[in-house]
């Protein structure tokens, strides 16, 4: 999953976990496919219908603030989103996303617009905006997170390593 390609759905600042998946749904089921029909519904109804597999969510500062619900990255993943790009992330969401194997990319998103097509090189650490012919560097992950993401999430990482190393 080193190279990703897709189109952009643009969101604003401070997209909290209640917006990503409302508390009123997440306690009901573990079926992420079912929950993913409600992804972002309070701020962008029918979002899940618009997404094609591999598309990107691009947002401003503080994406994923609020609760610790891991359903948030899981429903984004289940909706078919290939990666989330933001100016900055709230810390629990960021950790959860890496733990479940959803690529999250901290970079300057200010010039990325709705509908832009992006190519992302995860290992290389850059985002290429195909529509605007712009190359955007991304903030590197701490080494422990690189290892977790590389192994496909924390569960796989622990099975492979037999513990934290």
């Amino acid at each position, binding site marked *: 999953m080193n190279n990703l390609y897709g189109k952009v759905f643009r969101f604003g600042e*401070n997209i*909290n976990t*209640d*917006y990503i998946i*409302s*508390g*009123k749904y*997440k*306690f*009901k*089921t*573990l079926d992420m496919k079912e929950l993913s029909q409600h992804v972002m519904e*309070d*701020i962008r109804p029918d979002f899940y219908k618009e997404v094609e597999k591999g598309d990107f969510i691009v947002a401003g*500062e*503080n994406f994923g*603030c*609020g*609760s*610790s*619900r*891991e*359903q948030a990255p*899981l429903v984004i993943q289940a909706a078919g989103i290939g990666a989330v790009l933001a100016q*900055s992330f*709230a*810390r*629990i969401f960021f*950790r*959860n996303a890496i*733990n*479940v194997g959803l690529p999250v990319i901290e970079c300057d998103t200010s010039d990325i617009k709705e509908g832009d097509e992006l190519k992302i090189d995860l290992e290389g650490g850059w985002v290429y905006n195909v529509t605007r012919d712009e190359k955007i560097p991304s903030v590197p992950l*701490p*080494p*422990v997170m690189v290892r977790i993401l590389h192994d496909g*999430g*924390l*569960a796989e990482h*622990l*099975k492979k390593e037999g*513990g*934290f190393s």
Partner: protein
Amino acid sequence: MGTISEEILSNHAEEEVRAGQIVISPVDFTMSQDGTTPLTIVAFDKMEGKEFKNPDRYCAVIDHSVPSPLEGVSNLHTKMREFIGEYGGTLYDIGDGVCHQLVPEKGNALPGEVVIGADSHTCTYGALNCFSTGVGSTDLAAALITGKTWFKVPETIKLVYDGQLEKGVFSKDVALYMVGSLTHRGATYKALELSGEVIDSLSVEARMTITNMAVETGAKVGIMRCDEKVDAYLKERAKRPYKGADPSEDAEYERIVEDDLSDLPPMIAKPHEVDNVAEIEELEGMDIDQVFIGTCTNGRLEDLTMAAKILKGEHVAPDVRFIVSPASREIYLKAMESGVMDALVKAGACVTAASCGPCVGTANGIPSDNEVVISTANRNFKGRMGNINSKIYLASPATAAYSAIKGKLSDPREVMA
């Protein structure tokens, strides 16, 4: 030698660590609730977990959807009970209380310890000098299996709150002031270390209201020193011996913010962000439909007692619904024994089980379209209580109680002087 967070993480990692370093730390206690335990079970199975490393250091709490309002929820609750039945740990079932009251109340978050919980408000236990923070279900499952987790040692912002709070102004107002001044992302990834005359003057319960809301600034932890009040709170509760951690004289802070809060008025967080705070004057007289007193922020005995003091002999306005959710069974019982519950119920309260109540729209008390709610909770996000067309204003229990009588947002200093 360092900040409180650096001291605690150094002690756990058994090496001197500083902000920015990655540490693998043993975890002293772990917790998950009914919104996060089901995914913890999924992760535990995916990791091929066979047993808990320390079963006596884990509790699962059914507090968000209590009693279960839906069959899907009931089935997940059953899964939780089976998980604890099979692997050990303590289950707190419906009516026992809110996780962030139960963990400290049962003496499982102690000074100098590292605690993680699968709930963002786990930072509450910082009031007990505990390095406690919220994680997701996968991190929690990993800690159940290995007894450890990893952290990036946070930089610390030191907040010194001096002065003396006016009568009618409470720790909730300090918490809202803190979030307003730092903004909802002003401390992302960082630790808040709180001290000063105001903090010293507050009870441990009241301090928890402030550390509870540290995450609303993006912070990893909100932590305070261990003093005689903490020792007194833990005297009959602590499950283990403990040793508090003090910051060293030469600790390095990202920045130090000093404030005198003597003139702080009651504060309100307006829809739909917690840092959208205003002084009460700006909103006084606003019509309200529902008042909610409870949650891990303000459902403690002191909060209910303050509300009862204001409401005793009074009745809430005829067009206001008033909901109270005690934060634990112990609090519920004490409130009954002391007459607090009597005063609240006579004043018109609809009392729910000891639980999260209507805070997050999972069980009950969902407002209708266009309604205005005064809540003592910690979040007012759009749709938080289950309806995107309602508005949530956050306030102290005193502001909430006095407003309930008046039917309008009202300044509790009028009755507290």
